[in-house]
C-alpha cells in the first residue's frame, strides 16, 4: 500500500510527528466543520428581509438570501435592470475572447486573432453602450460591477501588452534615444503608486485639456491602468529577453533576417514563453488591482458589493457579500494560474 507507506513516512514518523499530525488534523476538521455549518447547514437560503434572515439563522448561519436579493446589483450595479442581459452577454463575450486567445495555435495567426478581438470588442461596446439596433443608450457611469472589472483588467492588459513589448525591446535597443525613453518611462511609472496614476488621470488630466474637450472618466481610468501595467509587463518581458542566448540572435542575423523578423519570429516567441510565470503573476495582480478604481468614482465589483450592504433592509451582511465577491475573483484568478501551468507544460520543450 503506497498510501500507507507515504502516510507513515510523512505524517506519523515518530511520536512528535504523530502528535503534530493529529493536532493539525483536529484543527483542520474543526475549521472545516465551522465553515460547513455557517455556510451550508445553518445557512438561510431565502427570507423576505434581513431581520427575518437573521432570526431564521439564529445568528450562526450565513444569510445567502441576501445574495439572492442583491446578486444582480453586485454583478451589474446600476445598469438599468431591464437591460442587464446586455452586460451579462458582454461577460460571456469577454470570457469567450480570452478563452479563444488561450489556444497557442491561434497565436501564429496574428491577423485572425486581431480581427476576432476587434470584432469582439466592438460588439461588447455596442452592447454595453447601446444606441444601435434599437438598444437604449446606457452611459458609462452606469457600467458597474463585474463587466466593469473584467473590462478594466482585460482591456488594460490587452493595450498594455504591445506597449510593454516595445518598451522592453527599447530598453535593450542599441539606439540611445530609444533606450533612454524606455528606461525613463518604466522607472517613472514604477516609481509611482497606481492610486496616484488613477488620480492624475481622473482629476489632473481634465485641467490640462482645452475647454470643451472632455474625455470620459472610465476611458481615462482604463488608459491609466494600461499605461501603468505596461511598465511592469515590460520589465518581465525584458527578463525573458535576457534569457535568450546570444547564439539565437546571431543565427537569425546570419540567415539575413531583418530586425523585426528576428524579433518577431525568433526572439520574442522564446522570451515570452520563458516569461509566462511572472507574466501571469502580473495578470493576476492587475486583475485584483482594478478594485482601486473605486477612488475615482467607478463602481467595480467590490464597490457594488460594498454598496449592497448599506441597504437599510439588509444592512451588515458584509461577510456574505465579500465571500460572494471573493469567490468570483477566485474563479478568475485560479483559471489564470492553472492556464499558465498548462501553457508552460505544452510550450516547454
Amino acid at each position, binding site marked *: 500500500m503506497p498510501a500507507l507507506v507515504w502516510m507513515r513516512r510523512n505524517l506519523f514518523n515518530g511520536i512528535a510527528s504523530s502528535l503534530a499530525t493529529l493536532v493539525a488534523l483536529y484543527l483542520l476538521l474543526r475549521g472545516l466543520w465551522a465553515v460547513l455549518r455557517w455556510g451550508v447547514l445553518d445557512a438561510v437560503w431565502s427570507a423576505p428581509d434581513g431581520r427575518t434572515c437573521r432570526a431564521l439563522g439564529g445568528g450562526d448561519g450565513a444569510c445567502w438570501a441576501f445574495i439572492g436579493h442583491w446578486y444582480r446589483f453586485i454583478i451589474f450595479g446600476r445598469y438599468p435592470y431591464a437591460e442587464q442581459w446586455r452586460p451579462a452577454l458582454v461577460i460571456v463575450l469577454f470570457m469567450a475572447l480570452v478563452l479563444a486567445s488561450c489556444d497557442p495555435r491561434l497565436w501564429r495567426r496574428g491577423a485572425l486573432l486581431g480581427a476576432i478581438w476587434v470584432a469582439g470588442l466592438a460588439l461588447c461596446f455596442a452592447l454595453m453602450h447601446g444606441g444601435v439596433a434599437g438598444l437604449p443608450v446606457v452611459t458609462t457611469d452606469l457600467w458597474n460591477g463585474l463587466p466593469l472589472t473584467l473590462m478594466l483588467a482585460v482591456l488594460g492588459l490587452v493595450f498594455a501588452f504591445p506597449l510593454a513589448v516595445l518598451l522592453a525591446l527599447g530598453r535593450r535597443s542599441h539606439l540611445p534615444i530609444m533606450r533612454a525613453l524606455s528606461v525613463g518611462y518604466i522607472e517613472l511609472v514604477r516609481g509611482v503608486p497606481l492610486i496616484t496614476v488613477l488620480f492624475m488621470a481622473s482629476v489632473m488630466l481634465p485641467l490640462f485639456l482645452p475647454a470643451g474637450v472632455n474625455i470620459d472618466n472610465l476611458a481615462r481610468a482604463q488608459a491609466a491602468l494600461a499605461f501603468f501595467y505596461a511598465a511592469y509587463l515590460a520589465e518581465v518581458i525584458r527578463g525573458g529577453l535576457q534569457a535568450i*542566448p546570444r547564439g539565437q540572435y546571431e543565427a537569425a542575423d546570419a540567415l*539575413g*533576417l531583418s530586425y523585426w523578423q528576428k524579433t518577431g519570429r525568433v526572439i520574442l516567441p522564446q522570451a515570452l514563453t520563458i516569461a509566462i510565470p511572472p507574466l501571469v503573476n502580473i495578470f493576476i495582480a492587475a486583475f485584483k488591482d482594478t478594485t482601486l478604481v473605486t477612488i475615482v468614482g467607478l463602481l467595480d465589483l467590490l464597490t457594488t458589493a460594498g454598496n449592497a450592504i448599506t441597504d437599510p433592509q439588509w444592512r451588515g451582511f458584509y461577510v456574505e457579500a465579500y465571500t460572494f465577491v471573493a469567490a468570483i475573483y477566485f474563479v478568475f484568478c485560479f483559471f489564470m494560474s492553472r492556464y499558465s501551468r498548462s501553457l508552460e507544460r505544452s510550450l516547454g520543450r
Partner: protein
Amino acid sequence: MSEVPMIALDRVEKRFGAFHALKGVSLSVARGEKVVICGPSGSGKSTVIRCVNRLERHDAGRIAVDGRELTDDPKQIEAVRREIGMVAQQFNLFPHLTVMQNLTLAPVRVRGMKPAEAEALALHFLERVHIPEQAAKYPGQLSGGQQQRVAIARALAMRPKAMLFDEPTSALDPEMIKEVLDVMVSLAEEGMTMIVVTHEMGFARRVADRIVFMDAGQIVEESPPAEFFSAPKSERAQLFLSRILGH
C-alpha cells in the same frame, strides 16, 4: 568566370577593448575554393569569419563578398548575409520551431519563397544531410550531430554562394563528429566555396585547397595542406602541429 574573389579581406583590423584581435588580416578566397583556418585558441580564427558576415564589425580595412563591400549600411549587410551561410559551434537552431520550420523560416521571410516551395527545398537539403525523417521534430529531440546537420541544411536552404563554418565539430561527442564531417566533405566535393575554422586536421588534409595558420591576430602562414603538414615554414606552425598531432 569573373576574377572577383568570392570573399576578400584587405588589412582588416578588429579590437575588443584593449585586446587586438585582428592585426591587418588579408585573405582572398576564390569561387569554389576551400580554405581551412587553424591556429591556437585566441588567435583570431573565429573573429575572421564572424567579420565576414558582420556578426562582428571590423574597425579598419575592407571586406568584400562577391564584390559587395561590407559597410555600416544595413541593406548591404543583409545582402551579404543572404549570400553567405554560417554554421556555428553551438548549432543555434531555433528551439521553438520544428526542424522543418527552422529550414523554411529564412527562405520564406527573407527570400520571399512560397511556403510549399520552401518546404520542398528544405526536404531536399534534409535528405542531403541524411535526416529527412526528423523534419517534424523539435531540435531538442535530436542528438548533437543531427542538430549540427540540421544547422548545415538550414544554411544551405538559403542557397548561399559560400559557407562559413566556425568550429562545427567542437561541441560534439566524438562519435558524432564523423557524420558532420562527412556532410561537409560532400559539400566541398560539390564545389561550394568554404571557409572552415576547425581543429580536425584529417578533414583539413583531405578537403582544403589551402591552410591558413593564424596566431595572435595575424596570418602567419598560408600553404597547401601537403606542404603545411609535412614542412611548415614558421616556427609557430611547427609548434602548433607538434602539439595537436603529437599524441
